[in-house]
């Protein structure tokens, strides 16, 4: 009996050692963070030896997946609302929550469009769109859509925009539609407009026309691993900050 106990203790130590050495980490992050996080992820893997797997989608989709029991360790949302949603259901580690980034909202058009617009109250959105539609995330759940609705309401043109809306699944899906020229205009984050040459920024929404765009990060409840903690630390570090800034995010 003594020998069995010794053997199993030894086994557990070995297991722990191997586990402690190279963790796999799953990160759910808002679609707008795709490019930046992929760069940061590579650096992190090289430095720490852990493997990082990302899943990029609309914050709404990701939150619902975590609610359904998805095995993710870290969640990065594009707005407070979806982080609050998980917090209310005790699905995040409250102490680990931190506001990481900010962003700004822009109106984009396909690169070959010559349209110009000044974003003042009551601007001629109908004229800009013609018989085409306006692409953005679904205001019912996608963060960028909610910001867009706020902004358009603030500018008094929501009634014009609503029937012409293409409610995309995520900000990147809306971006693709503008890239392809299927819509004459779209509302995305400035950081998204920056990663593709196939759209141009026609105008920027004033920061006071919508709620501040905040990207909170947190550990998923019950998934508190050393690798996950290390990753959030890395996100707050200076190297990550440099990458984020390069892509156009503001650091909170």
């Amino acid at each position: 009996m003594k020998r069995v106990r010794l053997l199993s203790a030894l086994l557990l130590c070995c297991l722990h050692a191997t586990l402690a050495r190279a963790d796999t980490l799953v990160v759910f992050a808002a679609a707008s963070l795709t490019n930046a996080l992929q760069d940061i992820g590579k650096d992190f893997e090289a430095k720490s030896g852990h493997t990082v797997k990302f899943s990029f989608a609309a914050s709404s989709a990701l939150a619902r997946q975590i609610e359904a029991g998805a095995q993710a360790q870290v969640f990065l949302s594009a707005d407070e609302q979806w982080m609050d949603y998980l917090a209310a259901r005790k699905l995040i580690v409250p102490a680990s929550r931190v506001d990481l980034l900010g962003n700004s909202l822009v109106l984009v058009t396909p690169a070959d469009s010559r349209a110009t617009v000044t974003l003042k109250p009551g601007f001629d959105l109908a004229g800009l769109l013609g018989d085409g539609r306006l692409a953005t995330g679904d205001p019912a759940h996608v963060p960028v859509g909610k910001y867009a609705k706020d902004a358009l309401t603030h500018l008094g043109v929501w009634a014009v925009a609503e029937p012409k809306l293409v409610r995309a699944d995520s900000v990147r899906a809306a971006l693709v539609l503008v890239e392809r020229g299927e819509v004459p205009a779209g509302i995305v984050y400035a950081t998204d407009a920056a990663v593709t040459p196939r759209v141009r920024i026609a105008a920027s929404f004033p920061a006071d026309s919508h709620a501040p765009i905040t990207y909170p990060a947190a550990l998923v409840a019950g998934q508190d691993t050393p690798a996950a903690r290390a990753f959030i630390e890395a996100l707050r570090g200076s190297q990550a900050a440099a990458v984020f800034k390069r892509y156009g995010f503001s650091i909170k």
Partner: protein
Amino acid sequence: MGGIEWDALLLSLKVGAASTALCLPFAIGVAWLLSRSRLPGRALLDGIVHAPLVLPPVVIGYLLLISLGTRAPLGAWLKSTFGIQLIFTTEGVVVAAAVMAFPLMVRAIRLSLDSVDRGLEVAARTLGASRLDVLFSVTLPLMLPGILSGAMMAFAASLGEFGATITFASNIEGETRTLPLAIYTATQTPDGDAIALRLVALSMALAVAAITLSEWLHRRTQRWLGRR
């Protein structure tokens, strides 16, 4: 049942019927080519026709997007010549559903075509019917059980089509938000579970009704042809 449910249901039914009707003549034509003709590229045609069965629906949706979007070659031509826009419209949903359902219909129709007794067609010709006349007066009626089966299958498949629809036609309430898309949207919305469940129940009821109807139709037509 609220407005969302009604809109989604009516749209799904409309799309199902329209995509089935759209598929039918092409499915019969392709089934004929595969079964009766001696076209050299038959194996290739067979492969292309069955692609939507094996490829992910999102891939099909993407292929539709890059060929039938308003800036894409075929789509632009459709818009300028006929004023037809497929992306963001119900017509686009119909096309996406039709493409996904097409292989199912071709299979069912081809099976029934293969089982038509060629001797009866020869007999019809000895009675003075031209080849086209034989097709309409003998072959098609004898294929009826298979055609109805294929149509019901296509209808049911259209009701459940999601991936190609959302990728190609997008998710626009009233225009392209069929039952599956409505369910998906509800699952993404906070506190959308109640609506989602109602929509799911509706979808299941619809599916059961479609299958029951299909079975009944099949049996009736088989009996009419004296096969039971």
